[in-house]
């Protein structure tokens, strides 16, 4: 199973996180969508994280319209995409 984290705080939900989570769940039965809290980087919400061998990588801000291109770019393996933010723990504000 691939763990994918989608926040469910007020800000993320207001930016469509519920729809994003539902849309990601429909991609594959191998995906385990986990709803978590926000890191506080509201400008990137909904911030979708994928657990990879190298750590948690982030994509954001993700809308439902981005899901198909994210999937095509291999986001489930940490693939590159215009919304790719690298390892979540290394995101800086600039």
């Amino acid at each position: 199973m691939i763990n994918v984290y989608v926040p469910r705080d007020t800000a993320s939900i207001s930016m469509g996180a519920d729809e994003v989570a539902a849309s990601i769940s429909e991609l594959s039965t191998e995906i385990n969508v986990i709803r978590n809290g926000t890191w506080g980087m509201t400008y990137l919400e909904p911030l979708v994280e994928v657990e990879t061998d190298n750590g948690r990588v982030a994509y954001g801000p993700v809308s439902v319209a981005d899901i198909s291109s994210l999937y095509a770019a291999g986001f489930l393996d940490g693939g590159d995409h215009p919304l790719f933010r690298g390892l979540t723990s290394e995101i800086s504000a600039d």
Partner: protein
Amino acid sequence: MDDFRQATNIVDGFKKIPGGLLECLHAIQDFYGYVPKEIVDIMADGFNISRAEVHGVISYYHDFKTLPLGRNLVRVCQAEACQSMGSRELTSRIVDLLGLDLGETSEEYTLDAVYCFGNCALSPNVEINGKLHPRVSPDNFEKLIKEGVL
């Protein structure tokens, strides 16, 4: 017109719970859409407290309504962060579009002021029928209300 028989069942479900009045009021409001004044007596009897005490709790919390709402509930934030991002202009537009001032109700709409949804980073915020919409400009409110309102 409902004869409020269901209210007795709802009150019975909460009256043994310490501090159950608040939960009971939520349940009543979920069922009726507001807290009918006829039910104050039923709650006072059920919880063995005075009608004044029930009224005191209802009137303390703005979210408990004592009159039926319009078919659609529009709540617009009036707190500082949203004001700094244009909620006054937004509110003026909403007032014009709905033909209601803050706190007023028509058959179709209820327009309420809210003092912070906790979504300040995405100001200004408007809630339409329970769904929160961030960064609402006066121009896209009209679009939102067409999408969100049944």
